[in-house]
């Protein structure tokens, strides 16, 4: 039953299960198909990409969001669900073009040169993927030039930069400057974050947005997408 598969996809997102061997939120889930297996069979049975994404994945994630607001879910639960959505989106990516689903956009993220801190950036990536964005994570300690090259080649809508050291924060400004020099600045919205970074700092270097944590990162990206951010 097609409807059933959609419901199961939604449930597997709520349970935060990617593969059939994964444990879920509730007992006794191991062995039942996870979100990747379910998405494969949904595709095989001809379900529309649209319904898989909007009803299944986003529907599940909305419920997860409500549970989080209500204090029933903690961040690890939220991240597990986001990871499940991310894994499903990876499978769906080749089918997006021409599916009628508006792809939410591509985001490149990186921790800047000389900075090895990547926990926060990884969390930001997971949440963005979970919200349906295509995230290309360049990693940490990434050369300014390499970031600019990636923007040129991948043509993302967003660039997310992370820095955790006062000494590496300035690299974010370097990236923006080099993008300008290369005539790429207008093609991409730039958001920045990391413990020492602030709203003011973001403005001062000419970034488009700032997020104090993963949820704000997502909110600011969504706001920039819909054009409500100024």
């Amino acid at each position, binding site marked *: 039953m097609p409807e059933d598969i959609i419901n199961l996809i939604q449930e597997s997102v709520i349970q935060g299960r990617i593969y059939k061997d994964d444990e879920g939120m509730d007992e006794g889930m191991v062995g039942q198909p996870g979100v990747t297996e379910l998405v494969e069979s949904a595709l095989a049975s001809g379900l529309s990409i649209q319904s898989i994404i909007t009803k299944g994945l986003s529907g599940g994630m909305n419920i997860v969001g409500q549970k989080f607001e209500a204090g029933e879910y*903690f961040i690890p639960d939220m*991240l*597990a669900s986001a990871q499940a959505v991310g894994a499903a989106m990876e499978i769906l990516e080749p089918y997006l073009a021409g599916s009628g689903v508006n792809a939410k956009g591509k985001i490149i993220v990186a921790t800047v040169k000389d900075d090895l801190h990547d926990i926060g950036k*990884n*969390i930001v990536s*997971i949440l963005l993927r979970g919200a349906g964005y295509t995230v290309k*994570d360049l990693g940490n300690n990434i050369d300014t030039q390499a970031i600019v090259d990636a923007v040129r080649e991948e043509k993302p809508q967003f660039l997310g930069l992370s820095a955790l050291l006062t000494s590496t924060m300035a690299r974010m400004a370097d990236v923006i400057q080099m993008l300008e020099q290369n005539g790429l600045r207008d093609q991409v919205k730039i958001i920045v974050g990391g413990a020492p970074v602030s709203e003011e700092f973001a403005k001062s270097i000419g970034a488009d947005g700032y997020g104090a944590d993963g949820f704000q990162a997502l909110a600011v990206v969504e706001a920039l997408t819909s054009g409500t951010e100024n």
Partner: protein
Amino acid sequence: MPRKGILVDRPFERLTREQAELIHQASMQILTDPGLISFNREAVDILHSHGAAVESIAGDHQSWQVKIPEQLVLKALDTAPKTVKLGARNPDNALIMHGDEPRVYLITGSETNIWLDVDFPTYVNKADPTKEIRVPEFKPRRGTIDDLCQSAHVCEHLEMVDGYIRTVNIQDRDITEENKDVNKFFASLNNNTKHFMSGLTSLKQLDNVVRMAELIAGGKKALEDNPIISFITCLVKSPLQFVDDTTETFIEVCRRGLPIVVSSSPQAGTTAPIKEAGIMAQINAEVLAGITLGQLVKPGTPVLYGSVPVRARMDTLGDSYGSVETSQYNIDCVQMARFYRIPNYSTSGVCDSKIPGQQSSIERLFSDMVVTMSGPQYLHCAFGLLDCNSVFCLLQAVLDDTHFKMIEFFLRQPRVDQPELEAMLKQIRDVVATSQKLYIGHIRPVLRSGEISGVYPFEGSGEADDVFELAHERMKELLARPVEHIDRETTARIFEEIPGILPRLNIYESGS
């Protein structure tokens, strides 16, 4: 199923086995030279008839010098039960204590004269009147029977409280020397289904309170099997004196076979030597003397080795429960009781501080942690007690419960075994192979299993310190939660058979 308590895997000890042995020998020597002074005739007769040397002391009060020979003590240590059960109205709240098992039960008490109310008046900043804060204000007053009911009620719901010793002395106008015992027993038992331990105000009331306990437990035999009440007597006054009236009470309780604590509370510096070896040799001798007397009255009487040693404050010569040495002495006593394999009643948590605050938290948490780690079976850890045992604050008791949850968590045994390590090796290899290298996904299976300790439950929002207000909210919540009172029929029988209980305590009649 008895309560679980906190099982301390490898208890912390200060003394080596040899040092414990030396203290034991010194105590034995003390019991024959100088021996004890007894102000109680019956104790003298009992000890004398079993071979103790007795000599009358000239003076105003009748008193005797009693020298207790070592073999009498050793025999008593032999007949004293190594396992003691303290029952409870709710049998699931029973406490089973093995003298050689460091399983810690946490107990409230003991009685203070002052009850501390708390209120949160608002203060306005003089420089900027738009700024207001609420500040806790503590107001002391004399304790009443209503307070006792409230405290028993809240302690019923405090998770970490395993047994109840009443926390406040009832000083209502209609409470007399004569009716105090029946009222304090009834108020406590009616609002709390955990074990109830108490001292007696008047020996004349002993049979009344035992009868009350029989009615509640379901008869004489039922009370024997499930002793829902027990007694505490400080029959020894340091240094080395059997007091007349409490010794009499002690003998009478032993005759009835109910569990009893032999407790001694010497103060290092005034009523015991200020040196650790000295107070230890003396308190151990004092407790052993009491245990010996009890076992002679009725061999097999369940006793607890009760120790409340304390150091004197150098400024006032009052008790300094908050001093570090007090915890050291208590830990030594726990070890001595374990040396004899007799369950121990120990003390922690009482603080010098007069109101809840930083000092009270530091003093009590310090002694609560270290003494719990030593593994006493029955830890009178003084939920809510302040000002060296003279003030009780229910708000503080709620805070203490939280802190004991942390201690309980801390003392859980580590799980390190082959299957666990194999699972961890797999997890490490799996995560290292991923690009993000985060273990967050593996938090989930343990997130709700109780394997992860919680954040401090009274954490405020932002930078405000809301601990007291949040704890106060919690206290009100617990008071609003019902308790299982003694049933209507039993209550009626208690009021019929036992004289002196205030009619307003009868929840079925007073309409409250």
